[in-house]
């Protein structure tokens, strides 16, 4: 029966795939809404203010109110802009920040696609993120967005190099590019402890990669108005905004998987290992996100040449050195994973 065949081999697998995608994307978007709220709240507490407290209990619904407000506004497209690329840029940014979630293992077996080159896929997706920014800056046909785009192109390419070396260091200790295996390799000790300097470098590079303070030079509001999204309004602005926070959560998850043992409990003892893995994973991601916000409230913005100096003259040689040291250590003590 052709009908039965169609039903079994296309419709049901297709529906399962769509359900899996929704099961990941919808919680991520809800998390984004509450991340924005918590960022405003934490910043407010650090600066001795009260933060959002009007919409809903404790202001919890503030992000949804903001999103509704933005979506109902008019989407203005500058007349001098390249319309197609102008509208494509936020879409690409948003899609890329969600695409990475396909390979993130939340708990043992709880992953949409458990591919062999998981970490390479994440690295590739995060390196594509720069295109949304460049296209937005170029298509706006105005000087501030263009300057923002140029800054972000150089910045993201520079910091990817050191992220690559950090990932290589971790891979040397794991012997696989599969994210599940990377987490399982941390049963005895989280990589954040033996590879502490790499953990710090990865976190700082993640800040630069997601264009967060103190490295938010692409949007640098005190000199470039709003950087690459100066000309954007309404729903296309919302997409950029959501994408920034979604990729923040993605980079935090990557940090947790590479260095903080993913879903593993801190110690494998009774009350801790009963807690489901996804709870540990979420708690660790929240911790890293808190660091992101804390850094934002604490440090002043880097000047552009300082940013480049840090990337090329400090992180790159140091992480290269650590790759050599780690591999040398593993070879001498015969600890190389087979």
């Amino acid at each position, binding site marked *: 029966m052709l009908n039965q065949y169609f039903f079994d081999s*296309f419709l049901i697998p297709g529906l399962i795939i769509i359900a899996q995608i929704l099961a990941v994307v919808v919680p991520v978007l809800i998390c984004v809404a509450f991340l924005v709220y918590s960022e405003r709240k934490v910043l407010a507490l650090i600066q001795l203010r009260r933060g959002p407290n009007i919409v809903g209990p404790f202001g919890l619904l503030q992000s949804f109110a903001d999103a509704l407000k933005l979506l109902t506004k008019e989407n203005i497209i500058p007349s001098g802009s*390249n319309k197609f*690329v102008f509208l494509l840029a936020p879409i690409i940014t948003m899609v890329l920040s969600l695409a990475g979630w396909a390979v993130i293992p939340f708990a043992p077996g709880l992953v949409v696609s458990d*591919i*062999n*080159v998981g970490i*390479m*896929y994440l*690295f*590739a997706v995060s*390196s*594509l993120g*720069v*295109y949304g920014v*460049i*296209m937005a800056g*170029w298509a706006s046909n105005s000087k501030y967005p*263009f300057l923002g*785009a*140029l800054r972000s*192109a*150089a910045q*993201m*390419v520079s910091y*990817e190099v050191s992220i*690559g070396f950090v990932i290589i260091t971790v891979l040397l200790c794991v012997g*696989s*590019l599969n994210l599940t295996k990377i987490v399982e390799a941390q049963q005895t000790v989280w990589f954040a402890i033996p590879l502490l300097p790499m953990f710090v470098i990865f976190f700082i590079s993640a800040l630069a990669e997601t264009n967060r303070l103190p490295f938010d030079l692409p949007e640098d509001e005190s000199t470039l108005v709003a950087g690459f999204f100066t000309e954007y309004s309404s729903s296309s602005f919302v997409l950029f905004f959501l994408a920034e926070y979604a990729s923040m959560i993605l980079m935090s998850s990557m940090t947790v998987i590479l260095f903080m043992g993913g879903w593993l409990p801190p110690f494998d003892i009774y009350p801790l290992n009963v807690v489901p893995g996804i709870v540990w994973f979420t708690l660790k991601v929240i911790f890293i996100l808190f660091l992101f916000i804390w850094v934002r409230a604490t440090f002043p913005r880097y000047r552009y*040449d*300082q940013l480049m*100096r840090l990337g090329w003259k400090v992180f790159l040689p140091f992480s290269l050195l650590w790759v050599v040291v780690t591999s040398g250590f593993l070879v001498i003590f015969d600890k190389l994973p087979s």
Partner: protein
Amino acid sequence: MILYSISFYLFSTIAVFSALMVISAKNPVHSVLFLILSFVNASGLFVLLGAEFLAMILVVVYVGAVAVLFLFVVMMLDINFIKLREGFLQYLPFGALLGLVLIIELGMLFYTETYSEVRLVEFSNKPLIAEIENTKMIGEILYTDYFYLFQISGIILLVAMIGSITLTLRDRGKVKRQDINSQNNLDSKNAIEKKKVKLGEGI
């Protein structure tokens, strides 16, 4: 398997179409964007072949780094590309010759018997998804049979890099550089100087 064929034709059609658009788009920035689209689709084809490591490397290296810088340069340069296009017919025979050479070389790969134990191209119509990880397979061949070729290509890249640095390195006269250490070591004693200024004279 029909999904496999659908995605193969989807990826290859978009790749060929965007490759055509690279050379026919009027706006150079659009050309580069189509080039990127073509790269991404080529990496999709690699995934279909079961070469997931190559696919990811293609995206990371070419799309994530090379094409970004390329786009960067094309956006910044004020080249009159319409004028460049005028020599299209003049360069056509040369380009066609290059294309022909490339096709012959690629065809020869299929008939190469052995450089090493492993045949370069296996004739197969289905994706090879081996038990052993793709990355490991590449590593085992690259660092044994093809070790010298691998090292030589690395040296060629190094030479190109040094060459481009020497081409752009020039004495810019007085450049004010920031010395982070000396700046961090500043304190109120050596940063501030007290001077007695006489009235109406200044320093």
